[in-house]
């Protein structure tokens, strides 16, 4: 499992990025609305602007993430050696099982 603090900060960043995209789309919509040759619906523009400001507030409240380095290569090597030992023991157990089966079959 990914540790909680790390994944949520990445998720927060992703969330903020999505809000930014939404924000820019809103801005585009506002511009389009204003540029509408039929005339501008002020209500629509007002609504869009409100959403815009809310998003800006949200983005300001989200804080940045910082990657953390946590690694211990000597422990990793020790674990690799343990892995090898386990694989070896597994082999031996399989061989034992095989010989037991063979002996019971013979009986």
């Amino acid at each position: 499992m990914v540790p909680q603090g790390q994944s949520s900060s990445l998720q927060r960043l992703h969330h903020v990025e999505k809000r930014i995209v939404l924000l820019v789309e809103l801005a585009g919509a506002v511009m389009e609305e204003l540029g509408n040759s039929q005339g501008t619906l002020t209500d629509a523009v007002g609504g869009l602007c409100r959403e815009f400001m809310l998003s800006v507030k949200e983005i300001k409240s989200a804080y940045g993430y910082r990657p953390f380095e946590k690694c211990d290569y000597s422990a990793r090597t020790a674990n690799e050696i343990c892995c090898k030992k386990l694989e070896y023991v597994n082999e031996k157990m399989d061989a034992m099982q095989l010989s037991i089966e063979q002996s019971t079959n013979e009986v």
Partner: protein
Amino acid sequence: MAAMDEDVRLDLDKLPIKRLEAIDEAGNEHYPPDTSSEEQRLAAIRRIDFSWVIERDAKKAKKAAEETAQQAWPWQGLMESLQQAQQELTVVLDLISTVEANDAVTVATASKPKSTPNEVLVDMAVSAATKLQQLRHLGRYFKQSAKTMEQQFQKEARFYGSLIRLQQNWKVKRQRGTGPGSETFMFDVIDTSQLDTAAMPRFSSMALIPIDQDSLGTLSVQVPQKSCRFLSLQFRGDGANGVENYACKLNGVSSTSSAEEIDTLEDDDVNKSVKHAHSILRNIHKSIFEEQVFDMVIRETFVQSEGINVTGMRDDFLQLAIGQESLLCLSLTDSGHDSESEMAGHEEHANSEDAANLVLATTNGKQEPLKRDASGFLNPKSLEICLLHMFHENILKKVREKYRNIVRYPSPAQAAADDCGLLSHFCMTVAHRIFSNKVHLELESVVSRVPYLHLRSLPTWHSRTSSWSLCLRVPQPILASDRPTNPSDKDEPKYKSRSQFNTKIILKDGQISLLGEGSPSIAGSLTRKPSDGYLINSYNCDLEDLPTMLLQQVASQVINWLHEEAVVLGMNVTRDFLCLYFDLDQGETLGLVAHVDPDDAYGCISWYLTIDHPVEDGKMSTDNPEFEKRRFLGYLSLEVLYSTLMDLINLCSTGVHR
């Protein structure tokens, strides 16, 4: 007055008497005020009439004007307007030339003509339309950038998500390039705290592994060009019992996975790429460590130590002689196998050969005990792991000491390693293992022919010590529950008859020692505690003598047991090392003799019955050979022996109950 030719005119002034000016009603006479002399003079001057001069001038002027008027053109007006036009034109030309010469021109205020309302509206409409167009353009621009940003964010989210997952296990280094977006990331695989500086240059080429991302943001790690090398340990001439290379479990080539999935951006891709990158990094890390170990091994060979016997060396290969017979080869090899053949090899090598050997040795007891080459029994994989483990422990210990300046009390295994150096410890371990296998074979061959013996290996937690226990299980007597107990011993546990006799075989580096439980000690019989009651017979022996000594020990234990049982049953018995003598009623002595023969194919311990008649004084039993009988009983099981004992109760004279 001018003298003229014409008639002179004379004006007669009135007498300068005061003339009456006015008479009013009252009759008063008003005379004009008296004038001053100046005024009289002026008045006099005024009286002079110059009118005729003025007339004369006026006449002359009139005449001249009349003359000129008669001489004027009829185009006078035209000329004047042309002249005015010319003046205007010159002004305009001057203006133009000044403007052409780029001189500053100040225009006198020229008021714009007031535009008509139509013009105003048209202007507004044009500007409004321009603004609308610009707004629309802006709107399109925003939407476009939103889309691009979204793609960019998605791509980066994939990349950084994968990077964070990998960053939990691997160090990431960042290098800032020139310009935006040219930051490159790299994985740093070396733990600088562990390596000595001397070894650094060799490994630094593999240290930093660049990270790439493709157009979708999927993270990928370049497979290094120099392929990874891993340690492999082999016994010379052991090609068939091949070295298992668990290295490099790269599945396929990385290029197969990149091209297809352009349409679907699923989590599976990310997982796959992360796992792939992780396995590559793992392999590189392992390879660096194993090369480091090889380096350290080579360096240890330069120091002359006990047990190290180098017979061959190359830059990636080391050959050591272990004992007289075995050659150990340590080499750095690439994982040159394909994934398929390697996986196939993995399944084949389920140690079936070893298992088959074991089965043969234990079940076919009647066959010739297999004298195989002991090194064939020894799995090189386990030795490889042992080597890596030892060196890693050493590295860790050095790191700890370096950082904490603490001397830790090492475990006995580590102390042994420290005394003589790692490689010599390892070589001695290998030698010990080989010898230990030989001992084990001998033990097995003995145990397989004595049915009431059980062999057990004991763990020793030391790589140069092995230990076995030979367990002699004796059948429980029927009368066990009726054993008389001393009433004063109620608080103590009941005396139980022995159910097993143990013999321990300890092997240290090639030195065999036997520890066998023997006859009950005097102290034990006093305290009645079975745990500390038995003498331990302790021997050292060679491999050749081992079976004999073992069997003798076992046989003496059987005799012990029979002796105890007989004593409990009240029989009059005496024991010798391998004999049990029953005193019979008639004074005869019945002997039950154990005979050990390690080379006997049917069984190692056989039994004889001897009868020894009492002799008259002076005669030795050996003089009458016909009275001494020695009957071969065979390879008896313990139950049979016990029942024999029971049968002999009747024959034996009853002794004193103990």
